[in-house]
Protein backbone atom coordinates (compact mmCIF):
# COMPACT_ATOMS: atom_id res chain seq x y z
CA UNK A 1 0.00 0.00 0.00
CA UNK A 2 2.79 2.37 0.86
CA UNK A 3 4.34 2.06 -2.55
CA UNK A 4 1.23 2.96 -4.46
CA UNK A 5 1.28 6.77 -4.15
CA UNK A 6 4.92 6.80 -5.16
CA UNK A 7 4.19 4.55 -8.08
CA UNK A 8 1.45 6.94 -9.07
CA UNK A 9 3.83 9.89 -8.90
CA UNK A 10 6.22 8.02 -11.11
CA UNK A 11 3.47 7.27 -13.60
CA UNK A 12 2.32 10.89 -13.62
CA UNK A 13 5.86 12.11 -14.16
CA UNK A 14 6.39 9.70 -17.01
CA UNK A 15 3.08 10.74 -18.55
CA UNK A 16 4.06 14.40 -18.28
CA UNK A 17 7.36 13.59 -19.88
CA UNK A 18 5.61 11.84 -22.73
CA UNK A 19 3.21 14.70 -23.35
CA UNK A 20 6.13 17.09 -23.21
CA UNK A 21 7.93 15.10 -25.86
CA UNK A 22 4.88 15.43 -28.06
CA UNK A 23 4.57 19.16 -27.43
CA UNK A 24 8.24 19.75 -28.02
CA UNK A 25 8.25 18.54 -31.61
CA UNK A 26 9.53 21.41 -33.69
CA UNK A 27 6.77 21.93 -36.15
CA UNK A 28 5.54 25.13 -35.87
CA UNK A 29 3.76 28.09 -36.87
CA UNK A 30 0.90 25.76 -37.55
CA UNK A 31 0.90 24.65 -33.90
CA UNK A 32 0.15 28.04 -32.44
CA UNK A 33 -3.42 27.45 -31.40
CA UNK A 34 -4.82 26.74 -34.85
CA UNK A 35 -8.52 26.09 -35.27
CA UNK A 36 -9.76 22.55 -35.67
CA UNK A 37 -7.71 21.12 -38.49
CA UNK A 38 -9.49 20.69 -41.76
CA UNK A 39 -7.19 17.79 -42.48
CA UNK A 40 -5.10 17.10 -45.51
CA UNK A 41 -8.00 15.85 -47.54
CA UNK A 42 -10.79 18.37 -47.88
CA UNK A 43 -13.65 16.63 -49.62
CA UNK A 44 -14.34 18.51 -52.83
CA UNK A 45 -18.07 18.32 -52.35
CA UNK A 46 -17.76 20.05 -48.99
CA UNK A 47 -16.07 23.14 -50.31
CA UNK A 48 -17.22 26.03 -52.37
CA UNK A 49 -20.91 25.84 -51.64
CA UNK A 50 -21.04 29.62 -51.71
CA UNK A 51 -18.77 30.05 -54.68
CA UNK A 52 -21.33 29.23 -57.32
CA UNK A 53 -20.49 27.95 -60.76
CA UNK A 54 -19.42 24.46 -61.64
CA UNK A 55 -18.60 22.03 -58.87
CA UNK A 56 -15.64 19.75 -59.44
CA UNK A 57 -16.90 16.36 -60.50
CA UNK A 58 -15.55 12.99 -61.57
CA UNK A 59 -16.76 13.76 -65.10
CA UNK A 60 -14.47 16.79 -65.21
CA UNK A 61 -11.54 14.61 -64.21
CA UNK A 62 -8.89 13.54 -66.72
CA UNK A 63 -6.17 12.53 -64.26
CA UNK A 64 -6.01 10.47 -61.09
CA UNK A 65 -3.77 8.26 -59.01
CA UNK A 66 -5.19 4.78 -58.57
CA UNK A 67 -6.82 4.55 -55.14
CA UNK A 68 -5.67 0.94 -54.92
CA UNK A 69 -3.08 -1.12 -56.73
CA UNK A 70 -3.63 -4.49 -58.34
CA UNK A 71 -2.14 -6.20 -55.29
CA UNK A 72 0.48 -8.21 -57.11
CA UNK A 73 3.41 -5.83 -56.84
CA UNK A 74 4.87 -4.92 -60.21
CA UNK A 75 2.74 -7.46 -62.06
CA UNK A 76 0.00 -5.32 -63.52
CA UNK A 77 -0.84 -7.68 -66.34
CA UNK A 78 1.24 -5.57 -68.70
CA UNK A 79 0.11 -2.23 -70.05
CA UNK A 80 -3.25 -3.73 -70.99
CA UNK A 81 -3.91 -4.84 -67.43
CA UNK A 82 -2.89 -1.45 -66.04
CA UNK A 83 -5.07 0.41 -68.53
CA UNK A 84 -8.01 -1.81 -67.63
CA UNK A 85 -7.45 -0.99 -63.94
CA UNK A 86 -7.55 2.75 -64.71
CA UNK A 87 -10.72 2.28 -66.74
CA UNK A 88 -12.45 0.21 -64.05
CA UNK A 89 -11.62 2.65 -61.25
CA UNK A 90 -12.80 5.56 -63.39
CA UNK A 91 -16.01 3.75 -64.33
CA UNK A 92 -16.74 3.07 -60.66
CA UNK A 93 -16.95 6.82 -59.96
CA UNK A 94 -18.84 7.70 -63.13
CA UNK A 95 -15.88 8.73 -65.28
CA UNK A 96 -15.84 5.68 -67.51
CA UNK A 97 -16.95 7.62 -70.59
CA UNK A 98 -13.34 8.66 -71.20
CA UNK A 99 -10.54 6.40 -72.44
CA UNK A 100 -8.00 5.96 -69.63
CA UNK A 101 -4.36 4.96 -69.93
CA UNK A 102 -1.81 4.20 -67.25
CA UNK A 103 1.28 6.43 -67.16
CA UNK A 104 3.78 3.58 -67.60
CA UNK A 105 6.67 2.91 -69.94
CA UNK A 106 7.81 -0.48 -71.19
CA UNK A 107 11.34 -1.32 -72.28
CA UNK A 108 12.34 -2.58 -75.70
CA UNK A 109 12.44 -6.33 -76.27
CA UNK A 110 13.56 -8.28 -79.35
CA UNK A 111 11.00 -7.45 -82.00
CA UNK A 112 9.11 -5.15 -79.62
CA UNK A 113 9.92 -1.46 -79.42
CA UNK A 114 9.86 0.50 -76.17
CA UNK A 115 6.74 2.39 -75.17
CA UNK A 116 7.08 5.82 -73.57
CA UNK A 117 4.61 6.75 -70.84
CA UNK A 118 4.41 10.30 -72.17
CA UNK A 119 3.24 9.06 -75.56
CA UNK A 120 0.25 7.26 -74.02
CA UNK A 121 -1.62 10.04 -72.25
CA UNK A 122 -3.00 12.38 -74.87
CA UNK A 123 -2.09 16.04 -75.09
CA UNK A 124 -3.75 17.61 -72.06
CA UNK A 125 -4.74 19.78 -70.34
CA UNK A 126 -5.44 17.36 -67.50
CA UNK A 127 -7.58 18.02 -64.44
CA UNK A 128 -8.01 16.12 -61.18
CA UNK A 129 -11.08 15.57 -59.04
CA UNK A 130 -10.75 18.39 -56.52
CA UNK A 131 -11.49 22.06 -56.25
CA UNK A 132 -9.14 24.49 -57.95
CA UNK A 133 -7.51 26.70 -55.30
CA UNK A 134 -7.45 29.76 -57.53
CA UNK A 135 -9.59 31.13 -60.32
CA UNK A 136 -13.04 29.96 -61.33
CA UNK A 137 -14.62 27.05 -59.47
CA UNK A 138 -13.65 23.97 -61.43
CA UNK A 139 -11.60 20.82 -61.26
CA UNK A 140 -7.99 21.69 -60.43
CA UNK A 141 -5.54 21.58 -63.28
CA UNK A 142 -2.54 19.23 -63.22
CA UNK A 143 -0.80 20.54 -66.30
CA UNK A 144 -1.53 22.30 -69.56
CA UNK A 145 0.39 20.01 -71.86
CA UNK A 146 3.09 17.37 -72.23
CA UNK A 147 5.93 19.90 -72.34
CA UNK A 148 4.98 21.56 -69.09
CA UNK A 149 4.25 18.25 -67.38
CA UNK A 150 7.71 16.91 -68.19
CA UNK A 151 9.73 20.12 -68.30
CA UNK A 152 10.74 19.93 -71.93
CA UNK A 153 12.59 23.25 -71.81
CA UNK A 154 15.00 24.26 -69.07
CA UNK A 155 12.68 26.95 -67.72
CA UNK A 156 9.71 24.59 -67.80
CA UNK A 157 11.74 21.99 -65.95
CA UNK A 158 12.90 24.51 -63.36
CA UNK A 159 9.40 25.82 -62.76
CA UNK A 160 7.49 22.55 -62.82
CA UNK A 161 3.80 21.85 -63.31
CA UNK A 162 0.81 21.93 -60.99
CA UNK A 163 1.37 18.28 -60.09
CA UNK A 164 1.84 18.48 -56.35
CA UNK A 165 0.83 16.56 -53.29
CA UNK A 166 -2.69 17.90 -52.87
CA UNK A 167 -3.33 17.73 -56.60
CA UNK A 168 -2.14 14.16 -57.10
CA UNK A 169 -5.50 12.76 -56.03
CA UNK A 170 -7.19 9.46 -56.49
CA UNK A 171 -10.35 8.97 -58.54
CA UNK A 172 -12.15 9.43 -55.21
CA UNK A 173 -10.46 12.81 -54.61
CA UNK A 174 -8.22 11.42 -51.87
CA UNK A 175 -4.68 12.68 -51.29
CA UNK A 176 -2.05 9.93 -51.28
CA UNK A 177 -0.28 9.65 -47.95
CA UNK A 178 3.32 10.79 -48.27
CA UNK A 179 6.31 11.50 -46.07
CA UNK A 180 5.18 12.88 -42.72
CA UNK A 181 1.65 11.47 -42.99
CA UNK A 182 0.02 8.62 -41.11
CA UNK A 183 1.12 5.22 -42.40
CA UNK A 184 0.68 3.46 -44.67
CA UNK A 185 2.68 5.79 -46.91
CA UNK A 186 1.90 5.03 -50.53
CA UNK A 187 3.72 7.85 -52.33
CA UNK A 188 5.98 5.73 -54.56
CA UNK A 189 4.06 5.71 -57.84
CA UNK A 190 5.05 3.20 -60.52
CA UNK A 191 6.13 4.78 -63.81
CA UNK A 192 9.06 2.80 -65.25
CA UNK A 193 10.10 6.06 -66.84
CA UNK A 194 12.94 8.54 -67.02
CA UNK A 195 12.36 12.14 -65.92
CA UNK A 196 11.37 13.10 -69.48
CA UNK A 197 8.61 10.48 -69.45
CA UNK A 198 10.40 8.07 -71.78
CA UNK A 199 11.43 4.44 -71.33
CA UNK A 200 14.90 3.57 -70.10
CA UNK A 201 17.24 2.37 -72.82
CA UNK A 202 19.79 0.38 -70.79
CA UNK A 203 19.59 -3.34 -70.14
CA UNK A 204 18.63 -3.14 -66.46
CA UNK A 205 15.04 -3.74 -65.45
CA UNK A 206 13.12 -0.54 -64.66
CA UNK A 207 9.61 -1.84 -65.36
CA UNK A 208 9.24 -5.10 -63.38
CA UNK A 209 9.74 -6.91 -66.67
CA UNK A 210 7.30 -4.68 -68.52
CA UNK A 211 4.79 -4.93 -65.68
CA UNK A 212 4.60 -8.71 -65.55
CA UNK A 213 6.87 -9.51 -62.57
CA UNK A 214 5.82 -9.75 -58.96
CA UNK A 215 9.16 -11.23 -57.95
CA UNK A 216 12.59 -10.28 -59.21
CA UNK A 217 13.34 -6.99 -60.88
CA UNK A 218 12.80 -3.34 -60.13
CA UNK A 219 10.57 -0.46 -61.15
CA UNK A 220 11.33 3.24 -61.39
CA UNK A 221 8.94 5.30 -59.28
CA UNK A 222 8.06 8.94 -58.76
CA UNK A 223 6.64 10.54 -55.63
CA UNK A 224 3.08 11.87 -55.58
CA UNK A 225 4.05 14.22 -52.73
CA UNK A 226 7.21 15.33 -54.53
CA UNK A 227 9.25 14.34 -51.46
CA UNK A 228 11.88 11.61 -51.29
CA UNK A 229 15.37 10.61 -52.35
CA UNK A 230 16.45 14.27 -51.99
CA UNK A 231 14.68 15.26 -55.20
CA UNK A 232 11.33 16.56 -56.30
CA UNK A 233 10.43 14.21 -59.13
CA UNK A 234 6.85 13.07 -59.62
CA UNK A 235 7.77 10.47 -62.24
CA UNK A 236 11.37 9.33 -61.85
CA UNK A 237 12.86 9.61 -58.39
CA UNK A 238 14.26 6.19 -57.49
CA UNK A 239 14.11 2.44 -58.12
CA UNK A 240 12.22 -0.11 -56.03
CA UNK A 241 14.13 -2.88 -54.25
CA UNK A 242 12.04 -5.59 -55.91
CA UNK A 243 8.74 -6.25 -57.63
CA UNK A 244 6.78 -8.15 -54.98
CA UNK A 245 3.97 -6.36 -53.22
CA UNK A 246 6.00 -6.58 -50.00
CA UNK A 247 9.03 -5.04 -51.67
CA UNK A 248 6.96 -2.13 -52.95
CA UNK A 249 5.43 -1.57 -49.54
CA UNK A 250 8.80 -1.72 -47.79
CA UNK A 251 9.87 1.58 -49.32
CA UNK A 252 6.62 3.53 -49.11
CA UNK A 253 4.75 2.26 -52.14
CA UNK A 254 1.62 0.23 -52.76
CA UNK A 255 1.81 -0.43 -56.48
CA UNK A 256 -0.26 2.63 -57.32
CA UNK A 257 0.13 4.39 -60.65
CA UNK A 258 -1.01 7.52 -62.50
CA UNK A 259 -3.96 7.36 -64.92
CA UNK A 260 -4.62 9.95 -67.62
CA UNK A 261 -7.59 10.25 -69.97
CA UNK A 262 -6.59 10.63 -73.59
CA UNK A 263 -9.86 12.28 -74.53
Amino acid at each position, binding site marked *: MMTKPHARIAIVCVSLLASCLVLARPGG*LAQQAPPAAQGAQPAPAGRGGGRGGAEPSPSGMSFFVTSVGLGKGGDLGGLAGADAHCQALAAAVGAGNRTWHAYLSTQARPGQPAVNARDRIGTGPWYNYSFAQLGQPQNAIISQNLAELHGDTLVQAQRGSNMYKQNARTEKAEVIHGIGDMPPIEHEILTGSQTDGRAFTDSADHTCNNWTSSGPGSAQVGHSDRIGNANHSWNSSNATTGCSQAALESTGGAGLFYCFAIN
Partner: protein
Amino acid sequence: MATKKSLVAAVAALTLFGGYVAVAQMPTPDPKMNFFVTSVPIGDGGNLGGLAGADAHCQSLATAVGAGKRTWHAYLSTQARPGKPAVNARDRIGKGPWYNFKGEVIAPDLAHLHGDTMELARLGNNLNKLTGLTEKGETVPGLYDYSDARDNFWWYAKTTPYSNRHEMLTGSQPDGTAFTDENDHTCDNWTSNKDAAPQPAGGRGAIGPGPGRPNAQIGFPDRNGGGNGSWNSSHGTRGCSQESLPGTHGVGMFYCFAIN
Protein backbone atom coordinates in the same frame (compact mmCIF):
# COMPACT_ATOMS: atom_id res chain seq x y z
CA MET B 1 12.59 -1.24 -1.21
CA ALA B 2 9.67 -0.95 -3.52
CA THR B 3 9.02 2.52 -2.17
CA LYS B 4 12.57 3.53 -2.79
CA LYS B 5 12.46 2.24 -6.37
CA SER B 6 9.33 4.25 -7.06
CA LEU B 7 10.94 7.37 -5.68
CA VAL B 8 14.01 6.84 -7.81
CA ALA B 9 11.78 6.42 -10.84
CA ALA B 10 9.89 9.59 -9.98
CA VAL B 11 13.06 11.59 -9.52
CA ALA B 12 14.50 10.25 -12.74
CA ALA B 13 11.32 11.12 -14.61
CA LEU B 14 11.25 14.61 -13.12
CA THR B 15 14.86 15.18 -14.09
CA LEU B 16 14.19 14.08 -17.64
CA PHE B 17 11.01 16.15 -17.69
CA GLY B 18 12.84 19.24 -16.49
CA GLY B 19 15.54 18.77 -19.06
CA TYR B 20 13.07 18.45 -21.85
CA VAL B 21 11.20 21.60 -20.88
CA ALA B 22 14.38 23.57 -21.37
CA VAL B 23 14.80 22.03 -24.82
CA ALA B 24 11.17 22.69 -25.69
CA GLN B 25 11.44 26.35 -24.82
CA MET B 26 14.53 26.93 -26.91
CA PRO B 27 14.69 24.59 -29.87
CA THR B 28 18.17 24.83 -31.21
CA PRO B 29 19.03 24.46 -34.86
CA ASP B 30 21.37 21.77 -36.07
CA PRO B 31 24.94 23.13 -36.03
CA LYS B 32 25.01 22.57 -39.80
CA MET B 33 22.07 24.93 -40.42
CA ASN B 34 23.01 27.34 -43.19
CA PHE B 35 19.57 27.78 -44.75
CA PHE B 36 16.28 28.96 -43.33
CA VAL B 37 13.05 30.73 -44.17
CA THR B 38 12.58 33.91 -42.13
CA SER B 39 10.10 33.15 -39.35
CA VAL B 40 8.77 36.71 -39.57
CA PRO B 41 8.74 39.40 -42.25
CA ILE B 42 10.31 42.81 -41.80
CA GLY B 43 6.79 44.18 -41.97
CA ASP B 44 7.01 47.04 -44.45
CA GLY B 45 5.97 45.14 -47.56
CA GLY B 46 8.61 45.05 -50.27
CA ASN B 47 10.68 47.68 -48.53
CA LEU B 48 13.34 45.57 -46.86
CA GLY B 49 15.86 48.38 -46.62
CA GLY B 50 17.54 47.11 -49.76
CA LEU B 51 19.76 44.05 -49.78
CA ALA B 52 21.60 45.36 -46.73
CA GLY B 53 18.42 45.55 -44.70
CA ALA B 54 17.37 42.06 -45.78
CA ASP B 55 20.78 40.61 -44.95
CA ALA B 56 20.64 42.24 -41.53
CA HIS B 57 17.21 40.63 -40.94
CA CYS B 58 18.67 37.20 -41.78
CA GLN B 59 21.64 37.83 -39.50
CA SER B 60 19.54 38.96 -36.56
CA LEU B 61 17.08 36.06 -36.82
CA ALA B 62 20.03 33.66 -37.02
CA THR B 63 21.69 35.30 -34.02
CA ALA B 64 18.52 34.92 -31.97
CA VAL B 65 18.73 31.14 -32.33
CA GLY B 66 22.48 30.92 -31.79
CA ALA B 67 23.48 30.72 -35.45
CA GLY B 68 24.88 34.22 -35.73
CA LYS B 69 28.49 33.22 -36.14
CA ARG B 70 27.86 32.54 -39.81
CA THR B 71 27.49 35.28 -42.40
CA TRP B 72 23.91 35.28 -43.66
CA HIS B 73 22.61 36.66 -46.93
CA ALA B 74 19.06 37.00 -48.18
CA TYR B 75 18.20 35.13 -51.39
CA LEU B 76 17.18 38.23 -53.35
CA SER B 77 18.09 39.70 -56.72
CA THR B 78 18.18 43.39 -57.60
CA GLN B 79 17.67 44.79 -61.09
CA ALA B 80 20.18 46.91 -63.01
CA ARG B 81 20.01 50.68 -62.64
CA PRO B 82 21.98 53.38 -64.46
CA GLY B 83 25.56 52.93 -63.28
CA LYS B 84 24.62 50.01 -61.07
CA PRO B 85 24.71 46.43 -62.32
CA ALA B 86 22.11 43.84 -61.43
CA VAL B 87 22.72 41.46 -58.52
CA ASN B 88 21.74 37.80 -58.91
CA ALA B 89 20.37 36.01 -55.84
CA ARG B 90 22.29 32.87 -56.77
CA ASP B 91 25.59 34.75 -56.63
CA ARG B 92 24.98 35.84 -53.04
CA ILE B 93 24.62 32.55 -51.18
CA GLY B 94 27.94 30.75 -51.27
CA LYS B 95 28.42 27.34 -52.83
CA GLY B 96 26.56 24.93 -50.55
CA PRO B 97 25.80 22.31 -49.51
CA TRP B 98 22.96 23.89 -47.56
CA TYR B 99 21.21 22.34 -44.59
CA ASN B 100 18.01 23.29 -42.79
CA PHE B 101 17.14 23.53 -39.08
CA LYS B 102 17.14 19.76 -38.74
CA GLY B 103 20.40 19.30 -40.63
CA GLU B 104 18.56 17.96 -43.69
CA VAL B 105 20.16 18.81 -47.00
CA ILE B 106 18.34 21.34 -49.18
CA ALA B 107 20.74 21.08 -52.10
CA PRO B 108 24.38 20.03 -52.46
CA ASP B 109 25.35 22.93 -54.70
CA LEU B 110 24.11 25.83 -56.83
CA ALA B 111 23.47 23.60 -59.85
CA HIS B 112 21.19 21.25 -57.89
CA LEU B 113 19.46 24.13 -56.13
CA HIS B 114 18.52 25.84 -59.38
CA GLY B 115 18.41 22.92 -61.82
CA ASP B 116 21.16 24.11 -64.11
CA THR B 117 20.84 21.14 -66.48
CA MET B 118 17.71 19.53 -67.89
CA GLU B 119 18.08 16.45 -65.69
CA LEU B 120 18.80 18.45 -62.51
CA ALA B 121 15.89 20.76 -63.25
CA ARG B 122 13.48 17.87 -63.79
CA LEU B 123 14.63 16.08 -60.66
CA GLY B 124 14.49 19.26 -58.58
CA ASN B 125 16.11 20.03 -55.24
CA ASN B 126 15.15 18.84 -51.78
CA LEU B 127 13.33 21.99 -50.70
CA ASN B 128 9.78 21.04 -49.84
CA LYS B 129 7.02 21.56 -47.30
CA LEU B 130 8.79 19.46 -44.68
CA THR B 131 12.33 20.79 -45.22
CA GLY B 132 11.56 24.48 -45.88
CA LEU B 133 11.83 25.35 -42.19
CA THR B 134 12.30 28.67 -40.42
CA GLU B 135 15.29 29.40 -38.19
CA LYS B 136 13.10 28.15 -35.33
CA GLY B 137 12.31 24.86 -37.05
CA GLU B 138 8.77 25.82 -38.01
CA THR B 139 7.05 24.68 -41.20
CA VAL B 140 5.58 27.46 -43.32
CA PRO B 141 1.78 27.42 -43.59
CA GLY B 142 0.62 27.04 -47.17
CA LEU B 143 -2.37 26.09 -49.29
CA TYR B 144 -4.70 23.67 -47.47
CA ASP B 145 -3.37 24.72 -44.04
CA TYR B 146 -6.35 26.22 -42.21
CA SER B 147 -7.56 27.70 -45.48
CA ASP B 148 -9.71 30.78 -44.85
CA ALA B 149 -10.94 33.53 -47.17
CA ARG B 150 -9.55 36.09 -44.72
CA ASP B 151 -5.99 34.86 -45.28
CA ASN B 152 -5.81 37.27 -48.24
CA PHE B 153 -5.77 40.19 -45.79
CA TRP B 154 -2.89 41.54 -43.72
CA TRP B 155 -5.10 42.38 -40.74
CA TYR B 156 -5.89 38.67 -40.52
CA ALA B 157 -2.48 37.26 -41.49
CA LYS B 158 -0.79 39.60 -39.01
CA THR B 159 -2.61 38.11 -36.05
CA THR B 160 -2.99 34.57 -37.37
CA PRO B 161 0.46 32.95 -37.53
CA TYR B 162 -0.89 29.72 -39.01
CA SER B 163 -2.56 31.41 -42.00
CA ASN B 164 -1.24 30.70 -45.49
CA ARG B 165 2.00 32.70 -45.98
CA HIS B 166 4.03 30.54 -48.32
CA GLU B 167 5.21 33.17 -50.79
CA MET B 168 8.90 34.00 -50.43
CA LEU B 169 10.22 37.20 -51.98
CA THR B 170 13.06 36.46 -54.42
CA GLY B 171 12.88 38.98 -57.29
CA SER B 172 14.52 36.26 -59.35
CA GLN B 173 14.07 34.16 -62.45
CA PRO B 174 13.96 30.35 -62.11
CA ASP B 175 17.72 30.15 -62.64
CA GLY B 176 18.30 32.51 -59.72
CA THR B 177 19.32 35.52 -61.79
CA ALA B 178 17.81 39.01 -61.86
CA PHE B 179 15.18 39.96 -64.42
CA THR B 180 16.48 42.00 -67.31
CA ASP B 181 13.30 43.64 -68.60
CA GLU B 182 11.98 47.11 -67.76
CA ASN B 183 9.25 46.03 -65.35
CA ASP B 184 9.65 45.95 -61.59
CA HIS B 185 10.21 42.47 -60.14
CA THR B 186 11.99 43.53 -56.94
CA CYS B 187 9.81 46.23 -55.32
CA ASP B 188 12.27 48.79 -56.65
CA ASN B 189 15.26 46.80 -55.44
CA TRP B 190 13.61 46.17 -52.09
CA THR B 191 12.94 49.78 -51.20
CA SER B 192 9.27 50.17 -52.18
CA ASN B 193 6.15 49.60 -50.12
CA LYS B 194 3.86 51.08 -52.79
CA ASP B 195 1.03 49.70 -54.88
CA ALA B 196 0.08 50.80 -58.41
CA ALA B 197 -3.38 51.68 -57.13
CA PRO B 198 -5.30 51.17 -53.90
CA GLN B 199 -6.27 47.51 -53.56
CA PRO B 200 -9.90 47.13 -54.65
CA ALA B 201 -12.45 45.86 -52.16
CA GLY B 202 -11.77 42.19 -51.56
CA GLY B 203 -8.02 42.71 -51.96
CA ARG B 204 -8.06 41.23 -55.42
CA GLY B 205 -6.03 43.69 -57.49
CA ALA B 206 -4.18 42.63 -60.61
CA ILE B 207 -1.30 40.21 -60.14
CA GLY B 208 2.19 40.48 -61.56
CA PRO B 209 4.48 42.92 -63.30
CA GLY B 210 3.60 45.67 -65.75
CA PRO B 211 4.51 49.24 -66.66
CA GLY B 212 4.35 51.39 -63.54
CA ARG B 213 3.40 48.46 -61.32
CA PRO B 214 5.38 47.87 -58.11
CA ASN B 215 5.77 44.09 -57.96
CA ALA B 216 7.97 41.31 -56.60
CA GLN B 217 8.60 37.83 -57.98
CA ILE B 218 8.00 35.09 -55.40
CA GLY B 219 8.47 31.31 -54.95
CA PHE B 220 7.09 28.63 -52.61
CA PRO B 221 9.02 26.57 -50.05
CA ASP B 222 6.11 24.11 -50.08
CA ARG B 223 6.22 23.97 -53.89
CA ASN B 224 2.43 24.32 -54.02
CA GLY B 225 0.77 27.12 -55.90
CA GLY B 226 0.75 29.41 -58.87
CA GLY B 227 0.22 26.56 -61.30
CA ASN B 228 3.82 25.40 -60.89
CA GLY B 229 6.08 24.15 -58.15
CA SER B 230 8.76 26.79 -58.35
CA TRP B 231 10.57 27.49 -55.10
CA ASN B 232 12.08 30.73 -56.38
CA SER B 233 10.12 32.10 -59.34
CA SER B 234 6.46 31.23 -59.55
CA HIS B 235 4.69 34.54 -60.11
CA GLY B 236 4.39 38.19 -59.13
CA THR B 237 2.51 39.98 -56.36
CA ARG B 238 -0.42 42.41 -56.42
CA GLY B 239 1.84 45.19 -55.22
CA CYS B 240 4.57 46.04 -52.72
CA SER B 241 2.62 47.31 -49.71
CA GLN B 242 2.42 45.08 -46.66
CA GLU B 243 -1.35 45.02 -47.19
CA SER B 244 -1.08 43.78 -50.78
CA LEU B 245 1.31 40.86 -50.16
CA PRO B 246 -1.28 38.59 -48.45
CA GLY B 247 -3.47 39.13 -51.52
CA THR B 248 -1.57 36.24 -53.08
CA HIS B 249 -0.67 34.48 -49.78
CA GLY B 250 2.60 36.07 -48.74
CA VAL B 251 3.60 38.32 -45.89
CA GLY B 252 7.08 39.36 -47.05
CA MET B 253 9.19 36.47 -45.78
CA PHE B 254 12.29 35.37 -47.69
CA TYR B 255 15.05 32.75 -47.82
CA CYS B 256 18.34 33.18 -45.95
CA PHE B 257 21.54 31.29 -46.77
CA ALA B 258 24.87 31.34 -44.95
CA ILE B 259 27.85 31.86 -47.21
CA ASN B 260 30.25 30.17 -44.81
